[in-house]
């Protein structure tokens, strides 16, 4: 089975708004997938459903053939946009927390990556700069040997050095046995590392396809396609 994530007619609605409508998607092993769309288009909701942090309202979703639950979280590595690492921890403690909680966490790799990311193990998480925090977040997620990786806005609001380091880390550590889903609206920054893209708008999939094919078909860069797709929205 190459489909690691399968969504069939997925719906998510809250009492006052629809967050996802009729989403049908398959994410395959070995791919880096871009989840594109403006704020509020449903990118985060979709990721959170896959991560079992949200429950769908209707439709089916399977993660390696299983329904999302705390068990599927064993092989789903999700990085929320939020600063989710406890501020009271030292970097070292955050690493140890991951090592204890996740069987697939590779501590050695995490330590190596942290030195590449230029983050001091002894520093307190709350005292890290925005860029350092973002780098720490990515490091913790990427150091797992998960099947599904999801990075929610990994480059947003960061300095060029952090962006470049994070991009390099994603490329270097990408595991062909897994799938990597990256959400962003900074298309230009990552379009060269995406195999496939999914464009979301108001909770619906409005365009999907292989990146290189889209370039050939439309003779445009992803960023231009993005502008075209959302220009009138």
């Amino acid at each position, binding site marked *: 089975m190459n489909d690691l994530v399968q969504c069939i007619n997925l719906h998510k609605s809250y009492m006052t708004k629809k967050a996802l409508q009729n989403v049908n998607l398959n994410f395959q092993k070995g791919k880096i997938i871009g989840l594109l769309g403006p704020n509020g288009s449903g990118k985060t909701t979709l990721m959170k459903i896959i991560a079992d942090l*949200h429950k769908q309202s209707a439709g089916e979703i399977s993660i390696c053939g299983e329904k999302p639950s705390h068990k599927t979280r064993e092989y789903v590595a999700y990085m*929320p946009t939020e600063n989710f*690492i*406890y501020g009271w921890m030292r970097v070292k403690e955050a690493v140890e927390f991951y090592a*204890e909680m*996740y069987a697939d966490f590779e501590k050695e790799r995490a330590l190596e990556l942290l030195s590449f990311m230029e983050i001091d193990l002894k520093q307190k998480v709350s005292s890290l700069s925005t860029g350092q925090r973002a780098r720490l977040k990515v490091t913790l997620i990427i150091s797992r040997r998960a099947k599904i990786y999801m990075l929610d806005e990994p480059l947003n609001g960061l300095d060029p050095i952090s962006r470049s380091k994070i991009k390099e880390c994603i490329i270097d550590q990408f595991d062909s046995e897994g799938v990597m889903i990256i959400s962003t609206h900074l298309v230009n920054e990552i379009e060269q590392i995406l195999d496939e893209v999914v464009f979301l708008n108001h909770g619906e999939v409005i365009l999907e396809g292989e990146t290189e094919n889209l370039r050939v078909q439309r003779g445009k860069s992803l960023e231009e396609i993005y502008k075209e797709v959302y220009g009138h929205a």
Partner: protein
Amino acid sequence: MLKLIKFEFLRKRMMFAVSIALVLIGQVYAIYKFFGIEAPVRAIIGQEVFAVYILIVLVAMAILYLIDIIFLFRNDLFKQEGYMLFMTPNSGYKILGAKLIFALIEGVAIVAFYLLLVFFNLKMMKLDVINFEFFRISSEDLVLMIKGLLLGVFVLLEFALTVYLSFALFKSIFNNIRFKGLITFFIFIAINVFKSQIMGVISDVINRSPEAIHISSSYFPVEMVNQALNYGLAATFVSAVILFMGTGYLLENRINL
């Protein structure tokens, strides 16, 4: 499970250190003040001063404990950092269970610490040598006292669980609607009204409400107090289990973090 409990301890280590330090400083200050009172006066009002002091400490500890255990859950459910915990491959029941066990251990530790303080003060203030009837503590009284304090811990825990349940409802079924703060508050009130209704029905059935015996009455036979405490413990326990199951279910199956 152990990992989760360990994590809760790790997180609270600073707070524990600071609170113990504060209590100790307060203690030193209290003793200093106590012996600042002139000796003859001290002999007369000593026990009242002691009783008031020990009561104030009790109430303060209970309030701080309650706030602390409510925040134990609130911070993870409502703050961004809670993702770190809720993303781990642990079921909602397990995460909640670890918090409760931790809160229980914390409560028992506070009780033990409190008892230590009481005896320490009895000794320091030299009240035990006066040998008043009231302060002559038999082993039976001590058991009752500990039981009473533990009941206090349970009641606070159970109360915190009703708060947890309303938080969980807020973050699951009622998520993403307007006036959620207000709604949560009403849910909380509703849960408590509902609970007291149930308690009323039950105590009508067994015709012996735990509140039937007032500790304040001048005469309280040990046997009856003991029985009341037992009923109280049982009732809180049952209620806590139901609240735990409800909250755990919401965390596991309905959550929208």
